[in-house]
């Protein structure tokens, strides 16, 4: 009997985010109606834009890749009981780090240069997440605020580097001064898997890492401790776990994954550091992780879902003349619904406890 009830409860909990997305889409439909567009035509165009052809489906997967990577970092941080809003900044420094290494060592063979560039991205992101992590652990500084401040600092750092030391010499010669770096050497690119589509090796890397994060969180001691700290810090402390250290570690790992996302965007898609490489993934990665119920494997379908919304939005915009920013509105609603619906999960849990 308890087995059945557990399954019912589990499916109730997994279904809530799905209900959240459906409610958001229904509200979106009313907004489309209010804007004078036919919701069926609009959503039809959206689905076609995301899945209609091999190219568009692969494009969805390309967009899903940074979402999944950032989402994995968010999963680890949230599981550790800390909130990482710094995805945007961590993506930016990750992209900068990877670009800098790839441009600095142009004569290295690809087998060395590609991993080095990826690691540079990971380390840059880890440092960017680590500063709030250390401040939280040592001085108790609210990590939400510091990660947000670090976003702004990363943006200014990127502005400075892409207009100054790292600007593409061609931009200077042509006097166009577009804020972007030179193209990174070809051997450092992530392999394209299905040309002419843009699908690249980074997507597979992200899926492998999702499985890796699952194993890490549920099958290793460090992962167990991170979850223990997140579930109940005082119990974890009595069990002899150094709570601040593991909170800091959760933020470092969160930053590392977002930094990797930046590196993968540069090495897999744009092949150079661009202004705006983060493209809001820092925030939509949070939506991805929440929709996946903070489970690394759940983040995989979540990233495809939100990737498809981002890709399909352009087609929708052309079909019904409703701006693509509608998707951002829906993402916001999904976040609000998912965190609000948590109350029912908690109520059921406490009812279960009192009923035995």
């Amino acid at each position, binding site marked *: 009997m308890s087995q059945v009830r557990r399954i019912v409860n589990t499916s109730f909990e997994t279904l809530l985010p799905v209900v959240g997305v459906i409610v958001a889409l229904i509200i979106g439909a009313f907004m489309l109606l209010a*804007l004078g567009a036919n919701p069926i035509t609009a959503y039809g165009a959206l689905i076609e834009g995301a899945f209609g052809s091999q190219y568009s489906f692969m494009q969805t997967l390309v967009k899903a890749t940074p979402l999944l990577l950032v989402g994995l970092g968010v999963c680890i941080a949230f599981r550790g009981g800390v*909130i990482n*809003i710094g995805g945007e900044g961590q993506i930016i420094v990750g992209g900068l780090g990877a670009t800098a290494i790839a441009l600095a060592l142009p004569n290295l063979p690809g087998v060395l240069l590609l991993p080095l560039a990826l690691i540079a991205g990971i380390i840059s992101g880890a440092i960017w997440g680590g*500063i709030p992590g250390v*401040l939280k652990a040592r*001085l*108790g*500084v*609210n990590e*939400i*605020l*510091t990660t*947000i*401040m*670090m*976003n*702004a*600092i990363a943006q*200014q*750092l990127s*502005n*400075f580097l892409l*207009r*100054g030391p790292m600007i593409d010499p061609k931009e200077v010669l042509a006097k166009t001064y577009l804020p972007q770096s030179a193209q990174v050497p070809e051997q450092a690119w992530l392999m394209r898997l299905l040309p002419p589509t843009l699908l690249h090796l980074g997507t597979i890397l992200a899926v492998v890492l999702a499985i890796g994060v699952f194993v890490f969180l549920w099958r290793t001691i460090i992962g167990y401790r991170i979850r223990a700290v997140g579930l109940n810090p005082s119990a974890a402390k009595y069990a002899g776990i150094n709570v601040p250290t593991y909170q800091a570690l959760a933020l470092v790992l969160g930053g590392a994954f977002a930094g990797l996302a930046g590196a993968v965007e540069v090495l897999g898609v744009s092949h150079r550091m661009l202004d705006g490489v983060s493209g809001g993934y820092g*925030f939509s990665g*949070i*939506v991805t992780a*929440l929709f996946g119920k903070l489970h690394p494997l759940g983040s995989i379908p979540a990233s495809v879902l939100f990737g498809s919304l981002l890709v399909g939005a352009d087609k929708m915009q052309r079909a019904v*003349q*409703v*701006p693509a*920013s*509608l*998707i*951002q*509105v*829906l*993402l*916001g*609603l*999904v*976040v*609000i619904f998912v*965190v*609000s*619906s*948590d*109350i029912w999960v908690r109520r059921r849990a406490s009812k279960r406890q009192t009923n035995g």
Partner: protein
Amino acid sequence: MSELFSLTVLTGIAYSGIRLATPYLFAALGEMFAQRSGVVNLGVEGIMLMGAFTAFAMATWTGNLWFALFCAAFIGLLMGLAMSFISVNMQAEQGISGIGMHLFGLGLSSLLFTKFLGSTKAITGFQPIKIPLLGDIPVIGEIFFNHNILVYLAFLLVPIAVWVLNKTTLGLKIRAVGVKPEAADSLGVSVSKIRYLCVSFGGVMAGIAGASLTLALINLFQENMTSGIGFIAVALVYFGGWTPVGVTLGALLFSLVNALQLWIQVLDKDKVIPSDFALMMPYVLTIAVLAFGKRTNQPAALTKPFDRGSH
């Protein structure tokens, strides 16, 4: 660079600093009330964007600036009420629900702008009003008494906030709810009513803060034009130790640095000082203050939902 230290330039920097403090002051003082009652509203940025858009659209269509300001405040009220419901009734994790509100406001403001206005020309915003006599004092008059009405209102809000928070029963209730909601509840203070009131007031102020950008400072709307002011406002409340005067000093510091870097960009023709680093300084400073400043006033129940049934 020596021009930087001339009286004209210094006066100019001080004048712009005070002017640019407007959105920070409105947003941060409103957020301070929300936080004193125990709720962190991270959605300020999204509410500001909606306020900025609403004010700009209404000013464009009706030409009535006060009506535009009122509409922005009303949108702020609606979003503040939504945030109250999410935080008080749904007891949602405030660090995340605010991000949802931010994405919502960011998306909706650019959606409505693209759909209904697109590129459009600047409006004539609130004009500077020179205060008689005081405005004629050399230097001081130029810096303090020759601003648009929203600047005066923003600074007028500071003593009002001090008075409400420290000298009225309402202020006492707000502080009690933020520190020990159980105790306030047992004395018959409605925790949810106080939190609804404070978060909604914060929403109204965020709406007005956004409107101050489009009606007085920039006179234009652009997508994501707040560029982080709303998030800084949330941090300013921590920065200022949850007191109106502290928050005001923080807001002035931010806006003065902003004014300074604008002038450096104008005067520093050889680009000796990268303006990006000047722009970075307030954020670095905020982190430093958050790390080493005292946190004596932090409301004990901050971010903790209050569940009456569990007591």
